[in-house]
């Protein structure tokens, strides 16, 4: 069958719920198609593999023109400044995703690992945010420099999120 070797190397650089999920779904979806997959978490994307934060990601409610109120009206930016609004919107978003059987971030990482996908953290970003290996998801495959990322990504398609 389709045994030609394909590989994707996904860079996740943001901590927004929707960006992190884009990266996770792309990686998991690749594995489901028999495509090798790796995710390199860098900069704010590190939140998605930081134990304390990974299951508390938010979607921005200010400066997000795609965001809608239930019913379809645009979400007024001024509403977004109300304390707790971002948490509430993010909670609702996660509830909708659960209905579609999209798992929480930590479980999604477990799924990708079980599927043979690999997860890497960016060394420079970790230094910048003063993160230690212990702060990160236990099952990461390593901490890479940008050069090492490129070495690993040899021959693969690179996707930047």
């Amino acid at each position, binding site marked *: 069958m*389709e045994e030609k070797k394909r590989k994707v190397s996904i860079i996740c650089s943001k901590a927004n719920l929707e960006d992190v999920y884009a990266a996770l*779904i792309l990686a998991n979806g690749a594995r*489901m*198609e028999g495509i090798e997959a790796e995710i390199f978490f860098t900069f704010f994307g590190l939140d998605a593999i930081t134990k304390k934060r990974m299951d508390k990601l938010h979607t921005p409610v200010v400066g997000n023109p795609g965001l809608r109120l239930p019913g379809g009206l645009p979400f007024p930016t001024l509403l977004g400044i109300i304390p707790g609004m971002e948490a509430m919107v993010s909670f609702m978003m996660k509830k909708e995703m659960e209905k579609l*059987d*999209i798992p929480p971030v930590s479980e999604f990482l477990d*799924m990708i690992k*079980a*599927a043979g996908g690999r997860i890497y953290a960016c060394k420079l970003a970790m230094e910048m945010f003063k993160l230690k290996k212990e702060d990160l998801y236990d099952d990461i495959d390593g901490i890479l420099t940008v050069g090492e990322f490129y070495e690993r990504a040899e021959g693969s398609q690179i996707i930047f999120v």
Partner: protein
Amino acid sequence: MPKKVYAGVEVDVDEEGYMTNMEQWTPDIAKEIARELGIELTDAHWKVINYLREKAKEGKLPTLRKLGKSGVVNIKELYQLFPNGPLKKAAKIAGLPKPKGCV
């Protein structure tokens, strides 16, 4: 509609070879589809296949996540049993339509 002969029986399939009528399926057909995919069916495979068919009869093919939590098999085992595309290959062997979900 394309047709294909498995185990001496002519069955309806789609362009990608997924069976379109699960009633035409037999275990012998499953063995032949599996062989085409390079898979030799074991008890562990059959558990997954039977579970998928049961669920399909209820009208809902499980996602990979649900299948992994079914107690029948976990995700790691699924990828070992059906390498390079566990849900698609398992569905194909089970005589079910191509899975449409993204997760």
